[in-house]
């Protein structure tokens, strides 16, 4: 297990450092002076990582304060300080699903971010952890979505409940819960159709699914995770805000970190909306989605 985790961290690091050895590695090299150039380069790097101007400014302020407070003189030390600031900023305040308890994961997001694939991988992950997962194919809109999830269910060897295309997604969830109870499963993973967050009626469909879960599984720990594609830019914040309002988000899944994108908008989302990242995906293999670790992420991002 330990070895696997290391392999994953290596992948994460590799993914985050594809363009030139870590997001910020370049600016910590050679010259050790902490001057205006340094801050300018830093801001540029943060913006290129999709953190957005506001978050970049906030983090920079924190770094400036720390540099002053701790009398930091070199860029090498500054890198360490920034890694800590980032890790602190990204660390979730609360634990995730409690061990040994039943739980529901409702997976939401815009089209094409990797919801279905993430569910497949999460099912495999939790099964390996000793849980008894079940999938609910509540994406009844996109052509062949249920088939896609079925393939993942077979790969991960977990049961799946699905209806035909165009069925009521809340009804799929309802049936899945009945089967979940009957089969004695302890983790329900609900896929939903991708929807752009500005479509009001689709957003109220999510509210309905939430109501079904709350009614049929009262008191069961429910997490609503927004899946974000690492290549997404500043629009991710708008997505998190709107999905948060109608679906009551509790966290984020960051996918496709194996490209050259850095996923910096998750820092902005954590800062502005307090939503922590819970899983990161770094590849297409079934093991390439793993629980989020703030320190690993911060260090991989910075190349420390």
């Amino acid at each position, binding site marked *: 297990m330990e070895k696997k985790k290391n392999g994953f961290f290596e992948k994460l690091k590799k993914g985050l450092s594809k363009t030139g050895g870590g997001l910020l590695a370049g600016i910590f090299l050679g010259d050790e002076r902490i001057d205006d150039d340094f801050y300018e380069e830093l801001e540029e790097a943060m913006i290129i990582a999709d953190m*957005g101007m506001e978050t970049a400014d906030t983090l920079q302020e924190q770094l400036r304060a720390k540099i002053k407070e701790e009398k930091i003189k070199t860029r090498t030390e500054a890198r360490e300080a920034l890694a800590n600031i980032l890790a602190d900023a990204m660390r979730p305040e609360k634990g995730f699903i409690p061990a040994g308890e039943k739980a529901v994961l409702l997976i939401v997001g815009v089209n094409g971010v990797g919801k279905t694939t993430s569910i497949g991988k999460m099912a495999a992950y939790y099964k390996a952890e000793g849980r008894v997962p079940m999938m609910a194919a509540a994406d009844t809109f996109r052509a*062949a979505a249920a088939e896609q999830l079925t393939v993942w269910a077979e790969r991960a060897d977990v049961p799946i409940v699905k209806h035909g295309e165009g069925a009521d997604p809340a009804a799929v969830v309802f049936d899945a819960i009945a089967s979940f109870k009957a089969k004695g499963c302890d983790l329900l993973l609900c896929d939903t159709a991708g929807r*752009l967050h500005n479509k009001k009626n689709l957003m109220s469909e999510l509210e309905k699914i939430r109501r079904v879960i709350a009614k049929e599984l009262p008191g069961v720990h429910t997490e609503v995770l927004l899946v974000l594609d690492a290549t997404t830019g500043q629009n991710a914040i708008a997505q998190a805000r709107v999905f948060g309002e109608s679906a009551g988000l509790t966290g984020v899944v960051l996918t496709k970190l194996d*490209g050259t994108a850095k996923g910096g908008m998750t820092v902005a989302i954590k800062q502005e909306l307090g939503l922590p990242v819970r899983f990161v995906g770094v590849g297409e293999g079934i093991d390439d989605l793993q629980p989020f670790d703030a320190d690993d992420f911060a260090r991989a991002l910075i190349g420390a």
Partner: protein
Amino acid sequence: MAFEGLSSKLQNVFKKLSGKGKLGEKDVKEAMREVKLALLEADVNFTVVKSFVNTVTERAVGAEVLESLTPGQQVIKIVNEEMTKLMGGTNAKLEFGSRTPAVILLAGLQGAGKTTMAGKLAAYLQKHYGKSPLLVACDIYRPAAIKQLQVVGEKVGVPVFERGQSDPVETAKLAIEHANRNLKDLVIIDTAGRLHIDGDMMAEIAAVKEAVNPAEILLVIDAMTGQDAVNVAKSFNETLELTGVIVTKLDGDTRGGAALSVKAVTGKPIKFSGIGEKLTDIEPFHPDRMASRILGMGDVLTLIEKAQSAFDEKKAAELESKMRKAEFTLEDFLDQFQQMKSMGSMQDILGMIPGMDAAKLGNVEIDEKQTARMEAIIRAMTPQERRKPDIINASRRKRIARGSGTSIQEVNRLLNQFEASRKMMKQLTNMSKGGRFKKGKKRFPFGF
């Protein structure tokens, strides 16, 4: 919504200076900071932003702006012009080449929307170009990708060629033969999503390209992509020598700044955009309109085009002139409910009217169910009442409420809303009359 249109931000910057009469370099600098912020917020690439701001600054500190009586307008005009230029100036048409069948190859990252776009493109080219397309499923990796293309193909009535999980290069070749035998003059190849840094996968798509010699090699890119869009576009362009780009998911509230960067970095034009979930939600890309969108200036031209394709031209012209003149009765209101239903959701349409930015839309909640009730209320009125809402007194209100199965409050609300929208249209018209654009210079005063 967090995003205020850049044009209104710029207006604010210049409003502060209105007492001064003339712009100094410092004022331009402040304005450029706003431009920079807004572009970054719209996900335009950092390097592109830097050079863009430099170009605009150079022009903006020139005499034509500083001595102008409306420097603010001038700067916005320059920003808009430069942005349009950056995106390629005019709409770039699809090329079909001289060979039959013409081949279009779609490439892109995972989840960009290639499969859906393949279906949309097939339907569009069938309808508007009289083509007889064949869809080819070359995504052999993603579970159920072939099934998805088949479902999409069936919906738009276009056949799909597939050979299961076998070699995509061979599949593409055989598809051309298949198209020839079946008298298809257009082949659209859907490929697997791939990372631009995945050597093996990039080699595979390069081999597909070699095998079929496409007339168009189009990169499909998600409008919500952030700073990384340039890396993606660069790599795909280096491997495939793209002929153009398709931007998908432009129906979100995203500003689509990635579109701007992609053109700037690769030099390849954006040819189409996907604007919704329905398979008819595709339109040719117009750089000038996209510039207005990034600036937050609305998009009257697209609105009018949409209206035209949904009903006849005469009605579209009437609609436009009524909107402008604000001689707008409840009858038109009702008429438009019908027509707009066929044009798309109210939200889409309102978003295209200049001066209506997302922030203002926030309190004009548009609910399709609500519009059905409004329709019922208007239908319960007499023709005279619809033409002259002023005559609707208390007893008429009571009757209308009963007749439409609603309450007097709802009738009141509708009348108030109608009045408000009439006023808003009047304001818009006044705004465009009040020197926001030079007379006779542009047919449609969208923005300036």
